[in-house]
């Protein structure tokens, strides 16, 4: 997996994304369509009922996370009771090892996979490849990025960054077919190629959308049908879930289904919702012979332990926050440098791979709050981004880049704010600082377009005119203003606008 963007090089990543016109066009179109579809689907439900659903979904998640040990234990017992195997994986390598060893025991040569961010997180494919097992992505978008040796750039639309021309080029290069940009024909080609792989595969690997504790049922949602094929055709089915995917009861699922498809793609429900409970007991039944559910920590227990960040475990991976984020729309998913992009990515990545590596991400936001408005489980994303910022600055975890320049920049920034804190401590200091700033402008400033002297700070002035400091601040003008106001009040004819009388508690 060479040349994959990393979070450490976020600055380079996003700059490259910004100057890529086809990516820009793809992002604007895709996120726009997804949002329109979502808004349309919401109008169907009605605002009030939508908010009821969100509140309930959050309540279920809160309750489950607060009692996670209980529900995971219940889930495991019920999966085992119906013939499945449970593996408790603390780390990514535990999970990888289990799967590779299982594949070896079952003589697996080809494994088919459906879209699973979790399998990206644990870097499963390279481990399988290293063990001589071919891992084939079957979701069309994932198949495309696999051929291209890239990561998916969106939680639900992995190949959002590719045009039809890009895909046509890719298929010609990797599959040896004649170049054809027709979308339905490219999909048909993928179907043919992947059907063959499905027929050959001895193992199917999926993620989990929801794991129902009280029945031991794993629920998977999709539009394409490749998940059904993955869990129906091969003899062994392995499903991976983070500890946060469990929900208490079958009836709880209803709320999430209503929210997930609408939030992700504007559908009332997606094409296929599969409920898998245990395994067959006879070769004359349909379905896999074996079912393995891997329950994975990989840093989530630590997330659970942090009361400020715990609610990031509520995420149901709908992608709505990506679609509405003005920053994501400009820089796309690869710039974030890891598995999870967008607002939720900026919150998960520092927690899962370390604040040092991902220090840039929580700052790459204006905290506009659009994400919080669309999150189906009401995660307070901006609050968590802020909290991560506090944590990062507090512990002095500068971006883990070799560059001494970055460490210097961090030091300078903290110094600026220490100076600022000192300067605003009293109004006297504030005024002195303000005068000093004006003096600096006068001496070192350049004239802007309107002829005013401004201190040129290229990060601003490269693209925007700088607003000059006013010659006389408001507080300097106040004495005249208040005098003039008093005079006006005396001379004033009483307005007929009725105003509430002053409160009595002076």
């Amino acid at each position, binding site marked *: 997996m060479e040349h994959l963007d990393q979070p450490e090089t976020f600055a380079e990543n996003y700059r490259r994304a910004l100057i890529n016109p086809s990516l820009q066009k793809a992002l604007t179109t895709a996120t726009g369509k997804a949002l329109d579809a979502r808004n349309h689907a919401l109008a169907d439900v009605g605002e009030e009922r939508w908010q009821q659903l969100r509140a309930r979904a959050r309540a279920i998640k809160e309750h489950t996370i607060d009692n996670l040990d209980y529900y995971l234990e219940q889930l495991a017992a019920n999966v085992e009771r119906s013939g499945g195997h449970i593996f408790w994986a603390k780390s990514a390598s535990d999970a990888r090892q289990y799967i590779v060893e299982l594949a070896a025991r079952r003589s697996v040569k080809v494994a088919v996979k459906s879209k699973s961010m979790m399998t990206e997180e644990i870097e499963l494919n390279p481990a399988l490849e290293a063990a001589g097992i071919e891992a084939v992505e079957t979701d069309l978008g994932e198949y495309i990025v696999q051929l291209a040796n890239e990561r998916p750039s969106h939680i639900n639309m992995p190949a959002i960054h590719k045009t039809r021309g890009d895909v046509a080029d890719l298929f010609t290069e990797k599959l040896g077919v004649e170049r054809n940009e027709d979308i339905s024909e490219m999909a048909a080609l993928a179907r043919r190629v992947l059907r063959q792989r499905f027929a050959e595969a001895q193992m199917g690997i999926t993620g989990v959308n929801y794991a129902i504790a009280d029945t031991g049922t794993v629920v998977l949602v999709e539009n394409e049908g490749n998940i059904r094929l993955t869990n129906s055709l091969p003899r062994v089915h392995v499903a991976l879930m983070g500890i946060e995917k469990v929900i208490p009861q079958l009836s709880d699922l209803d709320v999430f289904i209503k929210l997930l498809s609408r939030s992700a793609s504007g559908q009332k429900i997606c094409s296929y919702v599969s409920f898998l409970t245990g395994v067959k007991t006879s070769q004359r039944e349909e379905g896999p012979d074996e079912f393995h559910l891997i329950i994975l920590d990989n840093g989530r227990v630590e997330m659970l332990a942090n009361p400020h960040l715990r609610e990031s475990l509520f995420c149901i991976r709908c992608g709505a926050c990506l679609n509405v984020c003005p920053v994501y729309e400009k820089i796309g998913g690869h710039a974030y440098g890891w598995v999870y992009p967008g607002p939720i990515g900026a919150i998960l990545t520092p927690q899962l791979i370390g604040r040092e590596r991902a220090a840039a991400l929580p700052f790459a936001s204006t905290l506009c709050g659009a994400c919080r408005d669309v999150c189906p489980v009401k995660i307070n994303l901006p609050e968590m981004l802020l909290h991560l910022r506090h944590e990062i600055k507090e512990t002095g975890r500068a971006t883990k880049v070799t560059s001494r320049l970055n460490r210097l920049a961090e030091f300078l920034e903290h110094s600026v*704010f220490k100076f600022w804190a000192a300067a605003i401590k009293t109004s006297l200091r504030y005024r002195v600082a303000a005068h000093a700033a004006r003096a600096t402008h006068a001496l070192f400033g350049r004239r802007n377009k309107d002829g005013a002297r401004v201190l040129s700070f290229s990060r601003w002035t490269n693209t925007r005119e700088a607003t000059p400091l006013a010659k006389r601040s408001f507080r300097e003008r106040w004495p005249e203003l208040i005098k003039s106001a008093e005079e006006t009040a005396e001379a004033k004819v009483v307005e007929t606008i009725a105003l509430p009388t002053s409160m009595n508690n002076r």
Partner: protein
Amino acid sequence: MRVSLFITCVVDQFYPQVGEAVVQLFTNLGVEVGFNAEQTCCGQPAYNTGYRREARAVAVQMLRLFERELQTSDYLIAPSGSCTAMVKNSYRELFSGEPELQQRAQRVGERFYELSQFLVDVLGVEEVGASFNGRVTYHDSCHLLRELGVSSAPRKLIRAVRGVEFVEMHAPDACCGFGGTFSVKYPEISTAMVAEKAINIARSQADMVVACDASCLMQTAGFLSREGSNVRCLHLAELLASRNGDC
């Protein structure tokens, strides 16, 4: 009725005319205005950049100042959604683990208002005697809209200005890209966002864009000016203080 102004550091230093307009506005409405010159900053720049300790230090001071002002004034008014949200919402978080400060911040927050919200929801006025001839569009500042839930008040006030033709731009609630230090930490993204805002403003064919936050205006005006646009950027207070069809 007496209000005490929290003028905000940005208005104080960069847009004092906005502060003047606020004073003018209240004077016209017959509301007494006070200003405690000891005020400095609500602490938001440090808070948002991650420097909690520094932010808390100034927040505690401002809290004391606000409490003093509320002994002689009925309300605290700020011509800024983001500063108002900082005081009303974020001070609680900033003082977490300090219940006494949280309670004090809560009490102050109840009497702290952003300008447009105060005019419409508390004073109950929409028509303030202003007049301006021209096409005006409005930009929803993020904190004002999403933290404080204010969206119709500024629009009502703008529509009530005699001579104004109000036009809604596409995506008025799209972030302008300022985001405090974001604007200089990630200048290219910030610029890409304001460029989109500029396109939407241009398409609305407005002569003027109005907002309730001076920082949004700094960003938008800075970009529009560099692009050579003739669209003016004004704070709501300035529009509302305008007379004789011009401002």
